[in-house]
Protein backbone atom coordinates (compact mmCIF):
# COMPACT_ATOMS: atom_id res chain seq x y z
CA UNK A 1 0.00 0.00 0.00
CA UNK A 2 3.00 2.32 -0.31
CA UNK A 3 1.69 3.83 -3.54
CA UNK A 4 -1.68 4.44 -1.90
CA UNK A 5 -0.08 6.31 1.00
CA UNK A 6 1.83 8.56 -1.38
CA UNK A 7 -1.32 9.40 -3.35
CA UNK A 8 -3.08 10.26 -0.10
CA UNK A 9 -0.18 12.47 0.96
CA UNK A 10 -0.14 14.27 -2.39
CA UNK A 11 -3.86 14.86 -2.15
CA UNK A 12 -3.44 16.22 1.37
CA UNK A 13 -0.82 18.70 0.15
CA UNK A 14 -3.04 19.89 -2.70
CA UNK A 15 -5.96 20.32 -0.32
CA UNK A 16 -3.89 22.08 2.33
CA UNK A 17 -2.16 24.47 -0.04
CA UNK A 18 -4.62 24.77 -2.92
CA UNK A 19 -7.78 24.80 -0.77
CA UNK A 20 -7.07 28.27 0.65
CA UNK A 21 -6.55 29.51 -2.92
CA UNK A 22 -9.98 28.23 -3.98
CA UNK A 23 -11.49 29.78 -0.88
CA UNK A 24 -9.79 33.07 -1.74
CA UNK A 25 -11.13 32.90 -5.30
CA UNK A 26 -14.63 32.40 -3.89
CA UNK A 27 -14.20 35.40 -1.58
CA UNK A 28 -12.91 37.58 -4.41
CA UNK A 29 -15.70 36.53 -6.75
CA UNK A 30 -18.33 37.43 -4.17
CA UNK A 31 -16.67 40.68 -3.12
CA UNK A 32 -16.28 39.30 0.39
CA UNK A 33 -12.80 40.59 1.20
CA UNK A 34 -14.08 43.13 3.72
CA UNK A 35 -13.53 46.88 4.03
CA UNK A 36 -9.81 46.73 3.15
CA UNK A 37 -9.42 44.08 0.42
CA UNK A 38 -5.73 44.76 -0.22
CA UNK A 39 -4.85 44.38 3.44
CA UNK A 40 -6.92 41.19 3.53
CA UNK A 41 -5.06 39.76 0.53
CA UNK A 42 -1.70 40.66 2.03
CA UNK A 43 -2.48 39.15 5.40
CA UNK A 44 -4.16 36.06 3.99
CA UNK A 45 -1.36 35.24 1.52
CA UNK A 46 1.32 36.00 4.11
CA UNK A 47 -0.34 33.75 6.70
CA UNK A 48 -0.56 30.84 4.25
CA UNK A 49 2.99 31.35 2.98
CA UNK A 50 4.31 31.11 6.53
CA UNK A 51 2.10 28.15 7.47
CA UNK A 52 3.10 26.15 4.39
CA UNK A 53 6.77 26.96 4.87
CA UNK A 54 6.55 25.64 8.42
CA UNK A 55 4.60 22.60 7.19
CA UNK A 56 7.41 21.88 4.71
CA UNK A 57 9.95 22.08 7.50
CA UNK A 58 7.80 19.73 9.57
CA UNK A 59 8.21 16.88 7.05
CA UNK A 60 11.71 15.80 8.09
CA UNK A 61 10.80 15.48 11.79
CA UNK A 62 7.54 13.84 10.70
CA UNK A 63 9.42 11.21 8.73
CA UNK A 64 11.66 10.45 11.66
CA UNK A 65 8.71 10.28 14.03
CA UNK A 66 6.48 8.20 11.73
CA UNK A 67 9.27 6.15 10.17
CA UNK A 68 7.59 6.48 6.75
CA UNK A 69 9.88 7.49 3.92
CA UNK A 70 7.14 8.60 1.52
CA UNK A 71 6.59 11.67 3.69
CA UNK A 72 9.70 13.18 2.15
CA UNK A 73 8.41 12.58 -1.36
CA UNK A 74 5.87 15.42 -1.02
CA UNK A 75 8.45 17.85 0.34
CA UNK A 76 9.17 19.47 -3.01
CA UNK A 77 5.45 19.84 -3.78
CA UNK A 78 4.74 21.46 -0.42
CA UNK A 79 7.81 23.67 -0.64
CA UNK A 80 6.82 24.89 -4.08
CA UNK A 81 3.31 25.62 -2.86
CA UNK A 82 4.78 27.68 -0.03
CA UNK A 83 6.77 29.62 -2.63
CA UNK A 84 3.63 30.17 -4.73
CA UNK A 85 1.95 31.77 -1.71
CA UNK A 86 5.01 33.91 -1.00
CA UNK A 87 4.97 35.10 -4.61
CA UNK A 88 1.24 35.91 -4.34
CA UNK A 89 1.99 37.86 -1.16
CA UNK A 90 4.88 39.75 -2.75
CA UNK A 91 2.92 40.44 -5.95
CA UNK A 92 -0.01 41.89 -3.99
CA UNK A 93 2.35 44.28 -2.25
CA UNK A 94 4.17 45.19 -5.48
CA UNK A 95 0.90 45.82 -7.29
CA UNK A 96 -1.34 47.58 -4.82
CA UNK A 97 1.14 49.21 -2.46
CA UNK A 98 3.92 50.11 -4.89
CA UNK A 99 2.19 50.01 -8.27
CA UNK A 100 5.37 48.27 -9.49
CA UNK A 101 7.56 51.30 -8.83
CA UNK A 102 11.21 50.25 -8.47
CA UNK A 103 11.98 53.54 -6.72
CA UNK A 104 9.34 52.89 -4.05
CA UNK A 105 10.60 49.33 -3.60
CA UNK A 106 14.16 50.56 -3.18
CA UNK A 107 13.03 53.08 -0.59
CA UNK A 108 11.03 50.47 1.32
CA UNK A 109 13.98 48.05 1.29
CA UNK A 110 16.33 50.64 2.70
CA UNK A 111 14.02 52.23 5.23
CA UNK A 112 11.71 49.47 6.42
CA UNK A 113 13.23 46.55 8.19
CA UNK A 114 10.19 44.30 7.87
CA UNK A 115 10.10 44.80 4.10
CA UNK A 116 13.82 44.02 3.85
CA UNK A 117 13.32 40.87 5.95
CA UNK A 118 10.45 39.63 3.81
CA UNK A 119 12.23 40.46 0.58
CA UNK A 120 15.37 38.63 1.75
CA UNK A 121 13.26 35.56 2.56
CA UNK A 122 11.78 35.60 -0.95
CA UNK A 123 15.21 36.11 -2.49
CA UNK A 124 16.68 33.15 -0.59
CA UNK A 125 13.83 30.90 -1.68
CA UNK A 126 13.96 31.91 -5.33
CA UNK A 127 17.01 29.75 -6.27
CA UNK A 128 15.50 26.88 -4.30
CA UNK A 129 12.34 26.99 -6.38
CA UNK A 130 14.37 27.28 -9.60
CA UNK A 131 16.62 24.33 -8.75
CA UNK A 132 13.83 22.14 -7.47
CA UNK A 133 13.76 19.99 -10.63
CA UNK A 134 15.42 16.56 -10.88
CA UNK A 135 17.73 17.91 -13.59
CA UNK A 136 19.15 20.60 -11.33
CA UNK A 137 19.33 18.18 -8.45
CA UNK A 138 21.53 15.91 -10.60
CA UNK A 139 23.62 18.74 -11.99
CA UNK A 140 24.35 20.26 -8.58
CA UNK A 141 25.00 16.93 -6.91
CA UNK A 142 26.11 17.37 -3.29
CA UNK A 143 25.96 21.15 -3.56
CA UNK A 144 22.17 20.88 -4.08
CA UNK A 145 21.73 19.78 -0.46
CA UNK A 146 23.81 22.67 0.90
CA UNK A 147 21.97 25.14 -1.32
CA UNK A 148 18.59 23.94 -0.10
CA UNK A 149 19.58 24.52 3.51
CA UNK A 150 18.78 28.18 2.71
CA UNK A 151 15.21 27.28 3.61
CA UNK A 152 16.12 27.60 7.32
CA UNK A 153 17.28 31.25 7.25
CA UNK A 154 14.43 32.01 4.84
CA UNK A 155 11.82 30.68 7.27
CA UNK A 156 13.41 32.60 10.13
CA UNK A 157 13.37 35.81 8.07
CA UNK A 158 9.72 35.19 7.19
CA UNK A 159 8.70 34.80 10.82
CA UNK A 160 10.70 37.91 11.83
CA UNK A 161 9.11 39.85 8.96
CA UNK A 162 5.73 39.16 10.60
CA UNK A 163 6.93 39.99 14.12
CA UNK A 164 8.43 43.28 12.91
CA UNK A 165 5.27 44.68 11.41
CA UNK A 166 2.66 44.14 14.15
CA UNK A 167 1.75 47.15 16.24
CA UNK A 168 1.30 45.77 19.72
CA UNK A 169 -0.17 42.28 19.73
CA UNK A 170 2.86 40.05 19.11
CA UNK A 171 1.18 36.81 20.21
CA UNK A 172 0.52 35.45 16.72
CA UNK A 173 4.00 36.05 15.24
CA UNK A 174 5.48 34.59 18.42
CA UNK A 175 3.50 31.39 17.86
CA UNK A 176 5.08 31.06 14.40
CA UNK A 177 8.54 31.78 15.77
CA UNK A 178 8.01 29.23 18.53
CA UNK A 179 6.91 26.54 16.07
CA UNK A 180 9.89 27.30 13.89
CA UNK A 181 12.22 27.00 16.89
CA UNK A 182 10.74 23.57 17.67
CA UNK A 183 11.12 22.42 14.06
CA UNK A 184 14.73 23.61 13.90
CA UNK A 185 15.57 22.07 17.27
CA UNK A 186 14.22 18.74 16.02
CA UNK A 187 17.00 18.77 13.42
CA UNK A 188 19.89 19.20 15.82
CA UNK A 189 22.14 16.12 15.90
CA UNK A 190 21.02 13.80 18.66
CA UNK A 191 24.08 14.29 20.81
CA UNK A 192 23.66 18.08 20.70
CA UNK A 193 20.10 17.73 21.96
CA UNK A 194 19.68 17.62 25.70
CA UNK A 195 17.62 14.74 26.90
CA UNK A 196 14.48 15.94 28.61
Amino acid at each position, binding site marked *: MRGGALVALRLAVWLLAGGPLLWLAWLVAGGRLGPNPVEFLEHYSGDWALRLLLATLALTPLRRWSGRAEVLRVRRLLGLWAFVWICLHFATYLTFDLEWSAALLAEDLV*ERTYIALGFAAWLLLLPLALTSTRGWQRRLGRRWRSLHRLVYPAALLGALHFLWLVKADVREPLVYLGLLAVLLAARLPRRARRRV
Partner: protein
Amino acid sequence: MLIRVPPLHPLRESDVTPEAVYRDRRRFLAGLGLAGAALAVPGLARAAVRQPAELAVGNRSELAGGEAVTDYETVSTYNNYYEFGTGKGEPARTAHTLRTRPWTVRVEGECAAPGTVDIEELLTGLEERIYRHRCVEAWSIVVPWVGFPLSRFLQRFRPTGNARYVAFETLYDPEQMPLTRSGVLDWPYREGLRIDEAMHPLAFLSVGMYGRVLPNQNGAPLRLTIPWKYGFKSIKSIVAIRFTERQPATTWQTMAPREYGFYANVNPEVDHPRWSQRRERRLGELWKRDTLMFNGYPEVAALYTGMDLKRYY
Protein backbone atom coordinates in the same frame (compact mmCIF):
# COMPACT_ATOMS: atom_id res chain seq x y z
CA MET B 1 -83.43 38.33 7.26
CA LEU B 2 -79.98 38.29 5.88
CA ILE B 3 -78.99 35.12 4.18
CA ARG B 4 -75.30 34.91 3.71
CA VAL B 5 -74.03 32.60 1.08
CA PRO B 6 -70.29 32.08 1.51
CA PRO B 7 -68.40 32.36 -1.73
CA LEU B 8 -66.65 29.32 -3.13
CA HIS B 9 -63.32 30.68 -1.98
CA PRO B 10 -64.04 31.64 1.58
CA LEU B 11 -61.44 34.37 2.06
CA ARG B 12 -62.20 37.32 4.26
CA GLU B 13 -61.00 40.88 4.02
CA SER B 14 -58.86 40.27 7.12
CA ASP B 15 -57.13 37.33 5.45
CA VAL B 16 -55.59 39.57 2.83
CA THR B 17 -52.04 40.66 3.50
CA PRO B 18 -52.11 44.43 3.90
CA GLU B 19 -50.67 46.15 0.85
CA ALA B 20 -47.91 47.86 2.79
CA VAL B 21 -46.68 44.54 4.12
CA TYR B 22 -47.14 42.89 0.74
CA ARG B 23 -45.13 45.57 -1.02
CA ASP B 24 -42.48 45.31 1.63
CA ARG B 25 -42.16 41.54 1.25
CA ARG B 26 -38.53 41.65 0.16
CA ARG B 27 -37.53 43.46 3.28
CA PHE B 28 -39.68 41.14 5.34
CA LEU B 29 -37.94 38.14 3.81
CA ALA B 30 -34.54 39.77 4.27
CA GLY B 31 -35.56 40.31 7.88
CA LEU B 32 -36.41 36.64 8.24
CA GLY B 33 -33.07 35.70 6.73
CA LEU B 34 -31.31 38.10 9.03
CA ALA B 35 -33.18 36.74 12.03
CA GLY B 36 -32.18 33.24 10.97
CA ALA B 37 -28.56 34.24 10.68
CA ALA B 38 -28.87 36.09 13.94
CA LEU B 39 -30.17 32.99 15.68
CA ALA B 40 -27.26 31.00 14.29
CA VAL B 41 -24.61 33.50 15.35
CA PRO B 42 -25.41 35.08 18.72
CA GLY B 43 -22.85 37.88 18.37
CA LEU B 44 -24.27 38.86 15.01
CA ALA B 45 -27.77 38.99 16.47
CA ARG B 46 -26.99 41.96 18.62
CA ALA B 47 -24.93 43.67 15.94
CA ALA B 48 -27.50 43.27 13.20
CA VAL B 49 -30.77 43.82 15.00
CA ARG B 50 -29.87 46.86 17.03
CA GLN B 51 -29.90 49.80 14.60
CA PRO B 52 -28.60 52.88 16.44
CA ALA B 53 -31.18 55.60 17.16
CA GLU B 54 -31.37 58.69 14.98
CA LEU B 55 -30.13 62.01 16.33
CA ALA B 56 -31.52 65.49 15.73
CA VAL B 57 -28.84 67.30 13.74
CA GLY B 58 -28.79 71.07 13.14
CA ASN B 59 -25.93 72.54 11.16
CA ARG B 60 -24.14 70.40 8.61
CA SER B 61 -20.63 71.23 7.40
CA GLU B 62 -18.76 69.46 4.67
CA LEU B 63 -15.10 69.67 5.66
CA ALA B 64 -13.50 66.95 3.54
CA GLY B 65 -13.04 68.90 0.31
CA GLY B 66 -16.04 67.30 -1.33
CA GLU B 67 -14.56 63.80 -1.10
CA ALA B 68 -17.03 60.92 -1.08
CA VAL B 69 -18.24 59.81 2.34
CA THR B 70 -17.14 56.25 3.17
CA ASP B 71 -20.06 53.87 3.55
CA TYR B 72 -21.48 53.22 7.01
CA GLU B 73 -20.89 49.46 6.78
CA THR B 74 -17.14 49.99 6.32
CA VAL B 75 -16.79 52.59 9.06
CA SER B 76 -18.73 50.47 11.56
CA THR B 77 -16.95 47.16 10.85
CA TYR B 78 -13.31 48.21 10.48
CA ASN B 79 -12.17 49.53 13.82
CA ASN B 80 -9.15 49.88 16.02
CA TYR B 81 -10.51 49.52 19.53
CA TYR B 82 -8.07 47.21 21.33
CA GLU B 83 -10.30 46.90 24.39
CA PHE B 84 -12.51 44.79 22.11
CA GLY B 85 -9.79 42.89 20.24
CA THR B 86 -6.78 43.73 18.10
CA GLY B 87 -8.29 42.57 14.79
CA LYS B 88 -10.08 45.27 12.77
CA GLY B 89 -13.25 43.20 12.51
CA GLU B 90 -13.32 42.16 16.15
CA PRO B 91 -14.78 45.27 17.86
CA ALA B 92 -17.90 45.15 15.65
CA ARG B 93 -18.50 41.61 16.92
CA THR B 94 -17.51 42.02 20.56
CA ALA B 95 -18.27 45.62 21.60
CA HIS B 96 -21.93 44.85 22.30
CA THR B 97 -20.83 44.08 25.87
CA LEU B 98 -20.13 47.80 26.40
CA ARG B 99 -22.92 49.44 28.42
CA THR B 100 -23.31 53.04 27.28
CA ARG B 101 -26.13 53.90 29.71
CA PRO B 102 -25.98 55.21 32.35
CA TRP B 103 -22.84 57.11 31.37
CA THR B 104 -21.20 60.10 32.95
CA VAL B 105 -18.07 62.06 32.14
CA ARG B 106 -16.00 63.45 34.98
CA VAL B 107 -14.25 66.75 34.28
CA GLU B 108 -11.62 67.86 36.78
CA GLY B 109 -8.17 69.30 37.29
CA GLU B 110 -7.12 72.88 36.57
CA CYS B 111 -10.58 74.40 36.23
CA ALA B 112 -12.89 76.61 38.28
CA ALA B 113 -16.03 74.54 37.77
CA PRO B 114 -15.20 70.83 37.81
CA GLY B 115 -18.12 68.48 37.53
CA THR B 116 -19.75 65.39 36.19
CA VAL B 117 -21.90 65.46 33.09
CA ASP B 118 -24.53 62.93 32.10
CA ILE B 119 -24.36 61.82 28.48
CA GLU B 120 -28.08 62.61 28.03
CA GLU B 121 -27.30 66.30 28.58
CA LEU B 122 -24.97 66.23 25.60
CA LEU B 123 -27.47 65.10 23.00
CA THR B 124 -28.94 68.52 22.16
CA GLY B 125 -27.67 71.27 19.87
CA LEU B 126 -25.80 68.76 17.73
CA GLU B 127 -24.14 69.50 14.43
CA GLU B 128 -22.72 67.32 11.68
CA ARG B 129 -19.19 67.60 10.35
CA ILE B 130 -17.80 65.59 7.49
CA TYR B 131 -14.12 65.04 8.23
CA ARG B 132 -11.31 62.98 6.78
CA HIS B 133 -9.99 60.43 9.28
CA ARG B 134 -6.45 59.11 8.79
CA CYS B 135 -5.12 56.16 10.77
CA VAL B 136 -1.43 55.91 11.66
CA GLU B 137 -1.55 52.54 9.85
CA ALA B 138 -1.95 54.40 6.52
CA TRP B 139 -5.64 53.83 5.83
CA SER B 140 -8.30 56.51 5.83
CA ILE B 141 -12.04 57.13 5.72
CA VAL B 142 -14.41 60.10 5.34
CA VAL B 143 -17.04 60.23 8.07
CA PRO B 144 -20.05 62.44 8.84
CA TRP B 145 -19.65 62.83 12.59
CA VAL B 146 -22.41 64.16 14.83
CA GLY B 147 -21.44 66.12 17.93
CA PHE B 148 -20.30 69.51 19.12
CA PRO B 149 -17.08 71.55 19.27
CA LEU B 150 -14.72 70.39 22.01
CA SER B 151 -14.02 74.03 22.99
CA ARG B 152 -17.71 74.72 23.72
CA PHE B 153 -17.78 71.72 26.05
CA LEU B 154 -14.48 72.46 27.81
CA GLN B 155 -15.31 76.12 28.44
CA ARG B 156 -18.27 75.11 30.65
CA PHE B 157 -15.75 74.00 33.26
CA ARG B 158 -13.82 77.30 33.21
CA PRO B 159 -10.24 76.09 32.81
CA THR B 160 -7.74 78.19 34.77
CA GLY B 161 -4.51 79.74 33.54
CA ASN B 162 -2.68 76.62 34.67
CA ALA B 163 -4.62 74.43 32.26
CA ARG B 164 -2.01 73.94 29.57
CA TYR B 165 -3.09 70.46 28.52
CA VAL B 166 -6.23 68.35 28.48
CA ALA B 167 -6.05 64.64 29.29
CA PHE B 168 -8.73 62.13 28.27
CA GLU B 169 -9.43 58.65 29.54
CA THR B 170 -11.43 55.75 28.11
CA LEU B 171 -13.60 53.54 30.28
CA TYR B 172 -11.72 50.59 31.71
CA ASP B 173 -13.90 47.75 32.91
CA PRO B 174 -12.58 44.21 32.35
CA GLU B 175 -16.09 42.91 32.89
CA GLN B 176 -17.42 44.82 29.87
CA MET B 177 -14.10 44.49 28.06
CA PRO B 178 -13.03 40.90 28.69
CA LEU B 179 -10.23 41.05 26.12
CA THR B 180 -8.38 43.70 28.14
CA ARG B 181 -7.38 40.90 30.51
CA SER B 182 -4.74 39.79 28.00
CA GLY B 183 -2.94 43.09 28.59
CA VAL B 184 -1.90 44.12 25.08
CA LEU B 185 -1.90 47.79 26.15
CA ASP B 186 -1.62 49.53 29.50
CA TRP B 187 -5.27 50.25 30.26
CA PRO B 188 -7.14 52.52 30.65
CA TYR B 189 -6.48 54.06 27.24
CA ARG B 190 -5.26 57.64 27.66
CA GLU B 191 -4.89 60.54 25.28
CA GLY B 192 -4.13 64.23 25.49
CA LEU B 193 -4.04 67.54 23.67
CA ARG B 194 -2.38 70.87 24.26
CA ILE B 195 -5.04 73.35 25.40
CA ASP B 196 -4.78 75.46 22.23
CA GLU B 197 -5.24 72.32 20.12
CA ALA B 198 -8.27 71.36 22.19
CA MET B 199 -9.76 74.83 21.77
CA HIS B 200 -9.24 74.86 18.00
CA PRO B 201 -12.58 75.14 16.16
CA LEU B 202 -11.92 71.86 14.28
CA ALA B 203 -11.52 69.83 17.49
CA PHE B 204 -14.78 67.98 17.98
CA LEU B 205 -16.54 65.63 20.38
CA SER B 206 -18.76 63.07 18.65
CA VAL B 207 -21.81 61.30 19.99
CA GLY B 208 -22.91 59.99 16.62
CA MET B 209 -22.14 59.40 12.96
CA TYR B 210 -24.25 59.17 9.82
CA GLY B 211 -27.09 60.90 11.68
CA ARG B 212 -27.29 58.13 14.27
CA VAL B 213 -25.93 57.37 17.72
CA LEU B 214 -22.34 56.03 17.60
CA PRO B 215 -22.09 52.25 17.42
CA ASN B 216 -20.13 50.91 20.41
CA GLN B 217 -17.16 49.89 18.26
CA ASN B 218 -16.84 53.48 17.01
CA GLY B 219 -16.43 54.80 20.55
CA ALA B 220 -19.94 55.21 21.98
CA PRO B 221 -21.23 57.13 23.71
CA LEU B 222 -18.69 59.96 23.46
CA ARG B 223 -15.44 60.16 21.52
CA LEU B 224 -12.92 62.71 20.48
CA THR B 225 -12.61 63.58 16.77
CA ILE B 226 -9.41 65.42 15.84
CA PRO B 227 -9.28 65.37 12.06
CA TRP B 228 -5.70 66.62 11.58
CA LYS B 229 -4.14 63.98 13.84
CA TYR B 230 -3.74 60.23 13.46
CA GLY B 231 -6.79 58.27 14.51
CA PHE B 232 -5.33 56.97 17.77
CA LYS B 233 -5.53 60.51 19.20
CA SER B 234 -9.32 60.43 18.77
CA ILE B 235 -9.94 58.53 22.00
CA LYS B 236 -13.13 56.50 22.37
CA SER B 237 -15.76 55.99 25.09
CA ILE B 238 -14.51 58.86 27.26
CA VAL B 239 -15.22 58.75 31.01
CA ALA B 240 -12.79 61.36 32.32
CA ILE B 241 -11.31 64.65 31.17
CA ARG B 242 -8.65 66.45 33.16
CA PHE B 243 -7.08 69.90 32.71
CA THR B 244 -3.40 69.61 33.54
CA GLU B 245 -0.38 71.83 33.78
CA ARG B 246 2.01 69.18 32.47
CA GLN B 247 1.86 67.17 29.30
CA PRO B 248 -0.10 64.03 30.16
CA ALA B 249 1.22 60.53 29.48
CA THR B 250 -0.64 58.97 26.56
CA THR B 251 -1.06 55.26 25.83
CA TRP B 252 0.73 54.74 22.53
CA GLN B 253 3.45 57.22 23.34
CA THR B 254 4.18 55.39 26.59
CA MET B 255 4.06 52.04 24.84
CA ALA B 256 6.41 52.88 21.93
CA PRO B 257 7.79 56.43 22.23
CA ARG B 258 9.93 56.15 19.10
CA GLU B 259 6.91 55.27 17.00
CA TYR B 260 4.06 57.34 18.41
CA GLY B 261 4.49 60.91 19.55
CA PHE B 262 2.28 63.11 21.72
CA TYR B 263 1.38 65.35 18.78
CA ALA B 264 0.78 62.65 16.14
CA ASN B 265 -0.15 65.21 13.49
CA VAL B 266 -0.80 63.67 10.11
CA ASN B 267 2.42 64.45 8.26
CA PRO B 268 3.51 62.81 4.98
CA GLU B 269 7.07 64.02 5.58
CA VAL B 270 7.58 62.20 8.86
CA ASP B 271 7.49 58.42 8.51
CA HIS B 272 6.55 55.95 11.16
CA PRO B 273 9.85 54.16 11.91
CA ARG B 274 8.46 50.98 10.36
CA TRP B 275 6.35 52.28 7.49
CA SER B 276 5.88 55.28 5.23
CA GLN B 277 3.27 57.94 5.95
CA ARG B 278 3.55 59.53 2.52
CA ARG B 279 0.57 57.68 1.11
CA GLU B 280 -2.59 56.11 2.41
CA ARG B 281 -5.32 53.77 1.27
CA ARG B 282 -8.85 55.19 1.40
CA LEU B 283 -11.09 52.30 2.40
CA GLY B 284 -13.09 51.27 -0.63
CA GLU B 285 -10.25 52.09 -3.01
CA LEU B 286 -7.58 49.72 -4.29
CA TRP B 287 -4.81 52.20 -5.02
CA LYS B 288 -3.08 54.43 -2.54
CA ARG B 289 -3.39 58.20 -2.61
CA ASP B 290 -1.07 60.91 -1.31
CA THR B 291 -1.42 61.84 2.33
CA LEU B 292 -2.03 65.55 2.90
CA MET B 293 -0.18 67.68 5.45
CA PHE B 294 -2.34 67.92 8.60
CA ASN B 295 -4.67 65.55 6.73
CA GLY B 296 -5.75 68.45 4.51
CA TYR B 297 -6.52 70.90 7.36
CA PRO B 298 -3.83 73.58 6.84
CA GLU B 299 -5.72 75.96 9.14
CA VAL B 300 -4.18 74.18 12.14
CA ALA B 301 -0.61 74.92 11.01
CA ALA B 302 -0.56 78.10 13.12
CA LEU B 303 -0.69 75.94 16.25
CA TYR B 304 2.76 74.60 15.44
CA THR B 305 4.65 77.66 14.21
CA GLY B 306 8.32 77.42 15.08
CA MET B 307 8.06 73.76 16.11
CA ASP B 308 10.23 71.11 14.50
CA LEU B 309 7.57 68.62 13.49
CA LYS B 310 10.20 65.95 12.87
CA ARG B 311 11.10 66.15 16.54
CA TYR B 312 7.58 66.67 17.84
CA TYR B 313 5.96 63.95 15.78
